[in-house]
């Protein structure tokens, strides 16, 4: 039996080695990242800005909300009560905090990771790192997690501010969970985009530019493509009547802004600003008259989940058979439907008449898309860290292969005894 075979069982399991590689890199990264006062100052500024913003929203919204509430309960076009003053304040704070936090996270997440690998290359520390038995996957994941650790700390530190909303009402604990999920997935997704470019490109500067271009594409590029596609999709052989047909909604699945707007729209009664933005973004086939919108044609053939349901809409999978009989004067209405994604005030009565079904549609898809994206990009980054031509070598040697190579393997450990 050769020494190589003797030494083989000493290897711990692949998972354990991966795990210890991750923690090794994380410990080192966190040591330097949280050194000194920098981290504390950043957190303080971040929370200070958000708190000021929340107060500013309160100061602006509260007086108007009280005036509105003074007129007593009002209803929208479908007889649903508009939120009272307290809820209006809560919703406004929630909306602005969510959007502002998203912008901050979307700016910071890539910045934290674009240097992860390329800085090691520039400072010529990568060779030292790669020539250790650290697993390439461990290096990359450790880098990503340590960069995200600070970001996640920031996100979680702001949870109490969002929870302020619970005092006013208008947004529920579920809404805050959804908001946190979108923020977290944004951090992970955009962070891994930065990590990927950092591994793929030699210079940090180039990696930073490419990362922000990618983020820009996801946030602004995809809606523009979507809108352009939808607009040009109107007249063609398949669609001779010229009704607008939206582009594949998958285009918007990786868009953090759409996801957050979706979360915020969920809190809005009737059709608020964010609901309108969302419907404007996704539905080119709606007609709106004030707060009331309806669809002009059968929408979105073949795109399940985009079918608008509830009052004023055709299609939509009937969740129950109750016929509420709302808005019978509108054409193409299936009043009995409270689609799976809609919040309904009663059987078949969606709170948001049109896009109520859309609210809550995008954020879970965004979360899954970001998760898949970050896994893909992390694996790609991992492969880019392994020295060229050595990629195959990191597969575990098959049991049979261990016996092949050398005559007597391993020499005596020369220096070991003496040191």
């Amino acid at each position, binding site marked *: 039996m050769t*020494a*190589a075979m003797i*030494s083989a069982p000493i290897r711990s399991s692949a998972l354990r080695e991966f795990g*210890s*590689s991750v*923690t*090794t890199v994380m*410990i*080192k990264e966190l*040591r*330097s*990242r949280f*050194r*000194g006062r920098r981290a504390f100052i950043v957190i303080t500024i971040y929370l200070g800005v958000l708190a000021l913003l929340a107060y500013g929203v309160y100061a602006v919204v509260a007086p108007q909300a009280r005036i509105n509430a003074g007129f007593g309960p009002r209803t929208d076009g479908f007889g649903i009560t508009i939120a009272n003053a307290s809820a209006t304040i809560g919703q406004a704070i929630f909306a602005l905090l969510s959007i502002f936090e998203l912008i901050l996270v979307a700016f910071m997440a890539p910045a934290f990771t674009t240097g992860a690998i390329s800085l090691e290359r520039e*400072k*010529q*520390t990568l*060779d*030292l*790192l*790669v*020539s*250790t*038995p*650290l697993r390439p996957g461990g290096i990359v994941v450790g880098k990503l997690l340590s960069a995200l650790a600070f970001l996640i700390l920031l996100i979680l530190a702001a949870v109490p501010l969002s929870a302020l909303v619970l005092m006013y009402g208008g947004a529920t604990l579920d809404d805050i969970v959804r908001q946190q999920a979108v923020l977290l997935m944004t951090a992970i997704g955009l962070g891994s985009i930065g990590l990927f470019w950092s591994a793929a490109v030699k210079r940090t500067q180039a990696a930073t530019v490419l990362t922000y271009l990618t983020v820009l594409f996801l946030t602004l590029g995809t809606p523009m493509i979507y809108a352009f596609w939808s607009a040009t999709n109107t007249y063609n052989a398949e669609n001779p009547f010229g009704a607008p047909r939206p582009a594949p909604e998958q285009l918007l699945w990786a868009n953090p802004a759409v996801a957050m707007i979706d979360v915020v729209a969920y809190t809005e009664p009737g059709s608020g600003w964010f609901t309108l933005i969302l419907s404007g973004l996704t539905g080119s086939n709606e007609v709106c008259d004030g707060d009331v919108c309806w669809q002009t044609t059968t929408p979105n053939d073949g795109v399940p989940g985009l079918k608008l349901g509830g009052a004023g809409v055709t299609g939509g999978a009937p969740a129950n058979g109750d016929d509420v009989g709302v808005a019978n004067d509108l054409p193409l209405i299936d009043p009995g439907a409270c689609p799976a994604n809609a919040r309904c005030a009663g059987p078949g009565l969606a709170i948001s008449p049109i896009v109520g079904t859309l609210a809550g549609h995008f954020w879970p898809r965004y979360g899954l898309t970001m998760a898949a994206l970050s896994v893909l990009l992390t694996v790609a980054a991992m492969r880019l860290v392994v*020295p*060229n*031509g*050595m990629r195959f*070598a*990191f597969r575990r*040697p098959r049991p049979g*292969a261990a016996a092949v*190579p*050398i*005559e*007597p*393997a*391993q*020499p*005596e*450990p*020369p*220096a*070991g005894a*003496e*040191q």
Partner: protein
Amino acid sequence: MSESLVSSVPVIETRGLVKRYDGELAVAGIDLTVAAGEIYGLVGPNGAGKTTTMRILATLLAPTAGEARVCGIDVTADPIEVRRRIGYMPDFYGVYDDLRVWEYLDFFARCYSVAPARRASMIGELLAIVGLSDKRDAYVEALSRGMRQRLCLAHTLVHDPALLILDEPASGLDPRARVELREILRELRGMGKTILISSHILPELGELCTSVGIIDHGRLLRSGTIAEIERSLEATAILRIDLLSDPDAAASWLGTDARVGDVLRVDGEAVHGIRLEVPFSGSPDEQAGLLRTMVEAGHVVSGFSQATTDLEEIFLKVTGKSEEESAA
């Protein structure tokens, strides 16, 4: 398994090692064998293929052809196992910001899965070896170049490897730091480490290495102990003859001897008189005979010695010879 069998495995063994970058041959078939306990110096000009060879051994590059084994393990078949057995110090490297000296070593110890209990004591030992004990809590980026070099050397030792691969460890160091480095390497040799060290500055390797390989244009031109290489080049030993009498007469007298090559007159080198540098092909006995007949012929010789061939001259001879061969 017998003890002798184990130690007979060379720590480094390459066969027909070839590395090609975009069609350019960086390493053109190197057969290198380094036994346990040797300090092997790779000498060659910049771009000779030293770094490429070392990077292949350090599992950072895959060879285009041929094979390389460290402690009998193929570097491409099981790089992780190879990495556990080597400490690698690249020719250019940086250090991390925001990390203290002990944290730096602790990080690399973790990389090699050194047991936590061992880590703390080992960091102290290593810092003592490289003379950085008082810098334990200093930031790495605040160290001088020589100190960084020694710290990097310490990092190669955290897992007590059998083989150290040191790429140009003395480049850019001032003479004092160089002496310190040499002392450390001597200590490591005492610990029984096998060391592969490269340099383009030859004298710094001469006294340190047990063996030397001269490498140029991706080929290993000579390999062996310095004495062995010297012997293989003995044909062209250079005699330094200091003359108080007429040097030109002596030169023309020497020119009649078939064993003497082109005589070179060197002014100002000798303490007294004029020095001639005389390429002479012959044994030490024949050298003594030459001196005797020269004195008998009436030349006043105040000094007669064989120029000590240092590594630099050997190197120039070897590489010069290979260029002649390739030109012919």
